[in-house]
């Protein structure tokens, strides 16, 4: 991991709806090759930050730059939406093939092989590829969505609560999967999560969003030591649990 290179640089970002300011002069650096976890209160602007970073929401002021990437790479970012956002009219394999089909001219055989390979990489079987999103369980939906997010080998992967709605075993497996794939493929991950196990197990750094700003950022132990009242309140109830995990 190269700690020096910045993948995403956010400076003085202001985002709001009408009079309501959600992100208030927020600054954040995401390092290349790291997994950065973002925590924050519900309705506190986590999703707004993520959606602004992937240009789904307009910013009022401030700058977002991708110093480590060129234009093409910014386009090739992968996003895992909270509900998966799989195209319901396409089966799992076609969902993974969709971005590939748009990006390059692959022969049908290769397209199938690549899609099957991606599905297997995220721990699904080839036969799961024939299933439609309505036939998939929650965990499988997340896996297919991850396979689709990874279809173009993105340098930057955005995950919106990847383990929400999964049982602890499935969530643990999904965490391990993200970690393994990140090591193999070497992408940068920005993930929103409420799952403290995820924060402890996979995140290199943790950022806490409070009052529209980053209240604390750093390795989990540093964030745990933060004196910011909201950050203390967030981690207080679970500190014993974290100690149990050996943090």
């Amino acid at each position, binding site marked *: 991991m190269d700690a020096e290179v910045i993948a995403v640089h956010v400076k003085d970002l202001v985002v709001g709806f009408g009079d309501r300011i959600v992100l208030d002069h927020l600054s954040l650096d995401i390092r290349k090759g790291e997994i950065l976890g973002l925590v924050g209160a519900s309705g506190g602007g986590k999703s707004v930050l993520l959606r602004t970073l992937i240009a789904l929401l307009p910013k009022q002021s401030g700058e977002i730059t991708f110093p480590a990437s*060129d234009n093409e790479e910014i386009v090739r970012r992968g996003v895992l939406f909270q509900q998966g956002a799989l195209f319901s009219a396409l089966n799992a394999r076609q969902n993974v093939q969709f971005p590939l089909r748009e990006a390059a001219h692959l022969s049908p055989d*290769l397209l199938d*092989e690549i899609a099957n390979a991606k599905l*297997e990489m995220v721990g699904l079987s080839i036969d799961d590829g024939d299933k439609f999103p309505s036939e998939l369980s929650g965990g499988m939906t997340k896996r297919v969505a991850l396979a689709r997010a990874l279809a173009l080998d993105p340098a930057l992967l955005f995950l919106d609560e990847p383990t929400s709605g999964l049982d602890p075993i499935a969530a643990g497996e999904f965490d391990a999967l993200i970690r393994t794939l990140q090591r193999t493929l070497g992408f940068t991950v920005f993930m929103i999560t409420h799952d403290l196990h995820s924060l402890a197990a996979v995140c290199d750094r943790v950022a806490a969003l409070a009052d529209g700003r980053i209240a604390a950022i750093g390795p989990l132990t540093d964030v745990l030591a933060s004196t910011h009242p909201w950050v203390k309140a967030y981690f207080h109830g679970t500190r014993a649990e974290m100690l149990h995990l050996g943090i």
Partner: protein
Amino acid sequence: MDWSRGLIDLPSLIAIDDGPCSLQAGGAWTLGNVERLERLCQSVSHGRPGAIDVSGVTALDTVGAWLFEKLARQHGRPSGEADFLGASADYAGLLAEVRGLNRRKPAEKPRPFALMDVAIKTARGFAADSLAFLNMLGAVGTAFLGVLRHPASFRLTSTVYQLGRVGWQAIPIMALITFLIGAIIAQQGIFHFRKFGAESYVVDMVGILVLREIGVLIVAIMVAGRSGSAYTAELGSMKMREEIDALRTMGLDPISVLILPRLLALIIALPILAFLGSMAALYGGGFIAWLYGGMSPAIFVARLREAVSVTHFEVGLLKAPFMALVIGLVAACEGFKVKGSAESLGRMTTASVVKSIFLVIVLDGLFAVFFASIGM
């Protein structure tokens, strides 16, 4: 993975005749170059077995790694030797990752679109549709008997609300459309009857046609398109979001809670709309007879009184509740058939409108035969 370099560094693949490696690869093996990569891989498909020298590769992604893996499988892995020579640590991890992938062939799928299969499927679909329709008719009948036995369980508020939606709110558009239809029939009649001086018979034509057939038919088709589709979409999205399951777990019957009020509203609304529609069509006809045919309203009404009898009017309106029943039942059946996807909701809504319009016209034909045979 550097994409800008990937665009500049054209990939290459050279067959080598001697040495430990049979193939030497270079350049960017990435998705952006995939067309060229596929051609390269095909061109060396008959080479000798051996390892692949990847030291010249400048960029590699999953697509490139998979193509290498495919080459290695085609050329046979030499035992005890590394398949890929000169891979950097980054690439070696990726190449190792794809090694276990795509090992199993997907299960053979049955060949689609065999003519016999399609015929069988269509026949089965038709049988299943008929069965579902009868099933729904029975369920609604049972629910209706239940309401008759316990009138307190009838959902009056819901029925009145639905009546407002499918009846009251539909009046303007129904009146406008039927007014125009009446006007068009009158205009065409006057234009063509004028040639043999039978203009006054336009009143007979408009009166009988509107009251017996067109009034109720146009209104029923409009209702199928306007309200039947809405019913299907509503019930379908309720089914998708498990609202109907929630009702069942609360011990409530979705048929009597959701479908009976909608169906009754439709059965009440359609005759009223058909009556209003027929009147609007007669107005349209009279209006055009006055403007275009020069027949004063007083004469039009007098001729109309001679031309039509209450029987024609009865024949028209008797059909309306049955058409409403068919539209409502088809809408409910199709709504309950919706599966999880947004696409299936759209497909079922389309099917609902198409099937109910088809059945309304078939029903109209059957009624025509029936009324002719009893002399009405």
